[in-house]
């Protein structure tokens, strides 16, 4: 596998995103690992589990992206049109999964700073607000996880979240994937 050729075929912003993602996951894993080894029982379990889950979800999204990019690069472009396009569009369509997984992190950003002192001394009003925010973020992330799909592509919220030009090829890929299915169905 010619990694250099693969990297040169990617847009610089994507290479940067992958490198930043790898750095985040590696340092995050070291940080979380150290917290578990040295601080388990001593530091807030909210910090431990929130950061561990955040790093895990980022790692899953990153692995999905790298798997997809490598397989798209390796696809045999001299294979038949239906076969090649089916392979490519299926891989590209999986990008929606990356978005879904990344949105699952939302509530973790509202829980990692919770600690024992806050639990004991926090005012009721503050906790009501805090729990409402966490529940709201959890609800949004779960809702997005189940609703980020091709069926909703024309909805306002979908366009607002995934309107970036990077997502348009993904939607086109899904469209073509369906077209291929119809094309083959008439066989």
């Amino acid at each position, binding site marked *: 596998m010619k990694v250099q050729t693969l990297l040169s075929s990617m847009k610089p912003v994507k290479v940067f995103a992958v490198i930043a993602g790898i750095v985040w996951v590696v340092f995050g894993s070291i940080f979380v690992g150290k917290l578990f080894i040295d601080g388990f029982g001593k530091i807030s379990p909210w910090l431990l589990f929130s950061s561990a889950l955040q790093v895990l979800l980022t790692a899953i999204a990153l692995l999905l992206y790298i798997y997809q990019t490598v397989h798209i690069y390796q696809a*045999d472009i*001299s294979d*038949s*049109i*239906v*076969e090649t396009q089916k392979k490519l569009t299926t891989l590209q369509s999986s990008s929606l999964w990356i978005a879904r997984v990344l949105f699952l992190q939302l509530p973790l950003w509202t829980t990692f700073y919770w600690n024992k002192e806050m639990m004991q001394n926090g005012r009721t009003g503050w906790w009501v607000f805090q729990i409402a925010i966490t529940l709201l973020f959890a609800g949004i992330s779960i809702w997005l996880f189940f609703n980020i799909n091709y069926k909703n592509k024309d909805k306002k919220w979908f366009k607002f979240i995934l309107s970036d030009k990077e997502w348009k090829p993904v939607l*086109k890929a899904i469209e073509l994937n369906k077209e291929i299915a119809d*094309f083959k169905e008439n066989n």
Partner: protein
Amino acid sequence: MVFEAIMQTKQQAQQFQELIAQNKGILIKVARTYCQNEGDRQDLIQEMLIQIWQSFHKYNHAYKISTWLYRISINMAISYYRKNTNRINNNLPLTENISQIAEEGKAEKEQQLNMLDQFISELKELDKALILLYLEEKSHHEIAEILGISAGNVGTKVGRIKDKLKQRFSQYNID
């Protein structure tokens, strides 16, 4: 060792140049079918050439060279179309085309060919590929091999697309 490698690359480059010189028509036709804009067409041909060069050593002699080239160029054209989302819509409004052509007083046949190009550009990606190959007078067997469907299905689909195109022509009262 190094010398042999250089010689081999040089020989490959020469074979590649000959292959492109003999078959550049395929790339141009595919690019024309998928891109109406001249700039996009040139970019697409560049990408096709890069891909053909990168796949050159993998050429499977079980297939005709034209089959192999059509596969790569059409696959590239479809993927290129998907990738370049920021391009403006290539399909010019037909009425505008017709009036322009009429004003310029071009021959009727040329007008019909332009309309055919326009109608083909409105087809779905895979239908475009199918009709392109059909118009190139490829056999059903070769079309099937390029697309990856059965030869029988090629005939059925060609019939349907021809009907669609006829309908489009009849909308403009042209037989």
